[in-house]
């Protein structure tokens, strides 16, 4: 047993298996925390939490789980893509929902389309609404509808607005800012339209996933859509998952409820999201594939712990491929994913995943 010789199996951020001593793992953990403290201005984890994280990282079991009573709820981004599309199972998406409910016992599930972008759903929204209605007749667990704001799709040649990524290198800063503001307005309108159709078809919730992928204007669009939908449909649950551990300032000056969006880390993002009427928030902390799993998980946990400390709404961290400490590989090692689960709930004090 290698762990008895102060040699523990762990991984790099790309999933490669490595062996480390407890001292090395401790150094990685402390360095990961320091990165989050320096960049995200998060409070460092307490000594007890650091010790417990090292204990989780050095547990000899292949897979671990939370202590009884510490369970949280599970949600999904790209929900019905995972079985019917990515795994190639020849089943309808509403069948995938029932498999998740009856065989895998998921707490919630998400109906979605292959082109996971709100703009692209406009032409097929009523087909998606019919699928939602049928799913709601058969399912007991809550069903979200989800997609990304994906505001970049509004740029030429696919959309009507000039491309700020082309304008900015040309020094056309004001034109780039103007283009983002126009795109955000169009994006908001589409999300409100599609969210309304799905809400009126009985969706339990709407997910705005990977919000902020095109920068602060992308996040602004999702926040504005959330605010409108939460007021229009008081019983509709809205959840928002982020694109990044900090909001990219592609525009730089956009504000929501008086707060500048660019540069916000999870502890500020969660307050902004709550102000938009969102019911639950999913922080994203990106994995650095050239750093160790210990470094990545410690860094993610520090950001998440800071968010849960100040959050007024449930925090459901993203722990998928390449986020939340999970290695950047399509076949995520279960030794890492279960350790991330346990640490996020027990140390990060998350409400679920």
């Amino acid at each position: 047993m290698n762990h008895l010789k102060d040699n523990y199996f762990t991984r790099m951020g790309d999933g490669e298996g490595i062996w480390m001593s407890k001292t090395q793992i401790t150094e990685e953990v402390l360095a990961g925390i320091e990165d989050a403290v320096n960049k995200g201005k998060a409070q460092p984890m307490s000594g007890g939490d650091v010790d417990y994280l090292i204990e989780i990282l050095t547990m000899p079991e292949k897979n671990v789980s939370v202590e009884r009573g510490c369970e949280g709820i599970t949600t999904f981004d790209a929900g019905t893509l995972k079985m019917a599309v990515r795994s190639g199972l020849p089943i309808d998406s509403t069948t995938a929902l029932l498999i998740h409910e009856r065989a895998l016992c998921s707490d919630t599930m998400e109906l979605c389309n292959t082109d996971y972008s709100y703009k692209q759903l406009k032409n097929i929204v009523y087909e998606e609404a019919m699928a939602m209605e049928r799913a709601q007749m058969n399912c007991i667990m809550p069903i979200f509808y989800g997609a990304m704001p994906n505001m970049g799709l509004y740029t030429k040649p696919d959309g009507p607005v000039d491309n700020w990524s082309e304008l900015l290198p040309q020094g056309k800063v004001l034109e780039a800012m103007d283009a983002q503001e126009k795109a955000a307005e169009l994006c908001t309108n589409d999300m409100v339209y599609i969210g309304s159709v799905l809400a009126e078809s009985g969706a339990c919730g709407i997910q705005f996933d990977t919000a902020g992928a095109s920068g602060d204007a992308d996040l602004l669009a999702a926040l504005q859509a959330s605010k409108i939908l939460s007021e229009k449909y008081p019983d509709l649950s809205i959840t928002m998952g982020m694109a990044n551990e900090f909001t990219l300032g592609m525009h730089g000056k956009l504000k929501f409820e008086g707060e500048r969006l660019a540069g916000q880390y999870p502890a500020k993002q969660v307050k902004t999201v709550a102000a938009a009427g969102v019911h639950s928030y999913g922080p994203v902390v990106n994995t650095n594939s050239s750093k160790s799993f210990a470094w990545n998980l410690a860094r993610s946990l520090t950001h998440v712990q800071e968010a849960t400390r100040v959050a007024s709404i449930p925090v459901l961290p993203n722990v998928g491929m390449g986020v939340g400490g999970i290695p950047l590989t399509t076949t995520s090692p279960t030794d890492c994913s279960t350790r991330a689960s346990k640490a996020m709930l027990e140390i990060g004090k998350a409400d679920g995943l």
Partner: protein
Amino acid sequence: MAIMHEMAAGMGGIRTAGDMVARMVMKGMKIHAAKEYVAGKLGCSVFDLSDSAKMKEIRESLDIGTVVLRPRASSGMAAKIKIAELLDIKIPSVELFKKKIGISL
């Protein structure tokens, strides 16, 4: 990976009380408050909520849907109508269904 997270840290869906706790979290309740709320409505302890054997008995007695289908037992919409009443919440699809069939349950 999703299944590993569910096994390692999830509530257990309709195998336990995961779907109902999720409904309260989706309304903005933090996890501990959501568990206490659901346990109070079910008349069990918070500890029982993730016990699949205990919850099977409770779900069967309340007829709110179980993993294994049984004859004459509620499933799908029928189970959700009862869950909405039990938790004292509005479930959008239940409201839509009631409107469609023109009754007030």
